[in-house]
């Protein structure tokens, strides 16, 4: 299910990004922002899914998408970068203090916590490789 959802999102985002980058229309900037932020999340979901399941990654990926898409929509919506926060425009503060560190901590933690490579899986792969070499 998760892999199908990821593929559906990719199938929507790829042509949407293509159109948004090729056609000059202000409304399509919002489409482009949504497409470019959904794209990596969908690719992560596709890569992480095992047997159609996200193995506890649904929450972290949803948060990641909300942070990325929400921040980009905010950047587009803030006129002239918004009011000053900590001496810099709010939009720049979002770029420096949200868009890099929050996804980094979230995905590195999620990746390490949910990474699974069992010894028996690895041994099975090696056995299949040896079998194939034997056939050759």
């Amino acid at each position, binding site marked *: 299910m998760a892999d199908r959802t990821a593929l559906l999102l*990719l199938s929507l985002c790829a042509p949407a990004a293509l159109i948004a980058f*090729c056609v000059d229309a202000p409304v399509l900037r919002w489409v*482009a922002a949504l497409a470019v932020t959904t794209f*990596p999340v969908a690719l992560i979901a596709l890569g992480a899914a095992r047997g159609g399941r996200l193995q506890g990654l649904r929450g972290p990926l949803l948060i990641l998408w909300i942070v990325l898409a929400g921040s980009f929509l905010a950047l*587009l919506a803030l006129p*002239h970068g918004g009011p000053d926060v900590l001496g810099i425009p709010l939009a720049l503060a979002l770029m420096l203090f949200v868009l890099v560190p929050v996804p980094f901590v979230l995905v590195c933690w999620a990746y390490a916590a949910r*990474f699974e490579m069992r010894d028996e899986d690895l041994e099975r792969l090696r056995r299949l490789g040896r*079998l194939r070499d034997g056939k050759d």
Partner: protein
Amino acid sequence: MPILHRPFLVATALLYLLITLLIGVWALRRTRTPRDFWVAGRGMGVLMAGIVTMAAAFSGFVFLGGPGLTYRIGVASLFINLPIGFTSALLGWAVAKRLRLLAEVREVYTIPDALLCRFGSRTTSGTAAAAILVGTVSYLGTQLLALGRLLESVLGLRETAGPYSLAVGVAIGLAVLLFYSVGGGMVAGVYTDLFQGTLMMVSACAVFWYALKAGGGLSGIASSIAGSPRFGRQLLEPFGRAPVLTALGFYFVFGVGVLGQPHMLHKFLMLKDPRRLRWLPLTLGLAQILCLLIWLGVGLVVPALVAQGRLPALAQPDDAAPLFLLHFVPEIVTGLAVAGILSAIMSTADGFMNIGSAALVRDLPKAWGRRVRRELLWGRLATVGVALLAACLAFLYNDLIALLGTFAFGTFAAALAPALAVGLNWKRVTATAATASIATGTLLNTGLEFLAKQTFFPSLPKPPLPPGALPAAVSLAASFTVLLAVTAWQGRRGEAPLESDIAAVMEV
């Protein structure tokens, strides 16, 4: 570039070159088989893999071009860097694990090798190898020119070599690169990259600290820029000095296109134990973040210093980093930074020399159904050939190579990212779809970028894209669309049964 010729900097540069040569000598004794030459004997730990992958990915552009771009278009340039929050984990989930597991069951030394195993099609792997070779020669040519210019400036070659100073600079850099890359292959490549990557991180952190100190902290820098009539608050606004489509295009190409960079992906094949991949996103991401501090720091402080009247307005934006280093940083840190810049250039160049020679000796012959005997010997010869070809083309077609080099990242992204990121994770992707996607990405990006930037043929039209749209972003989106559309169009009838080991790799 301003002249950096000072005794301490000369000594630093020479010491740096000497250390890389010594690593090359050490690695030469440890390179005995093609496996050593192409994938460093598959013996890398995860911390090393993170630093080495970062060093391969970040060229001199991060140290010189990046701050210059920020001076020119403001914080819109940072959209190139924003994806590092997730790219290391995206690489881990989408490609690193599958590539490394493929190497566990088959003899996979290169990215076209991996594509051949996955799709069972020599056309697919051959198309990928051709795309890699074209991108490699142009990327390498650009790096060699940058290396020559830096050595020319640091060693004061204009005074001694006159009109041949650039050629002498390139020759010195190339000689060191060839010595360790030809002799030690990837064993030398990864150990020099480890040394170089560490230098890059240390120098980036040190220069960032001095940048904040010189500018009066982040808020001091921001208030100087915002109050200046030359720059104004626009420089600090995300879309103040660049169209929205440019900024979003940067984010897309550098966020998703990273999945198609062969010089980075190649490093994942060298990991000793696939179970250690658990920590790859952390080590790679941290290394990247530390290194990019120099871009952020110097990129923002130089306009602030110009606004404060402490630096003259720059004639060339790319002079931002050298001018800051010469005027606001102690000489010992400048020396470290010069070694860091040399490291950034050479660590990228050695990776390309290796994958370029692999494309010639391994990937293209395999695509024609042939196998080169004495692969180690021919690999070494091909490394010399690729490097000399890139250097010659860089001299003969200086503008063309610089132009090609600037869009090699986009070409790799558009050509390889869809076939790898989707193809390694979805069994229904067919060889036809992968080949169509690789060809679309390569041809579309090369064509659009050429039309957008060439000045050789005035009668040729500009690409029909809106202002600010990046050809690489269009090509990447098109390449993904083609892959998904062809796979859907072929349906189940185009699906070839996967061999059991490949199917198992895609299920783990």
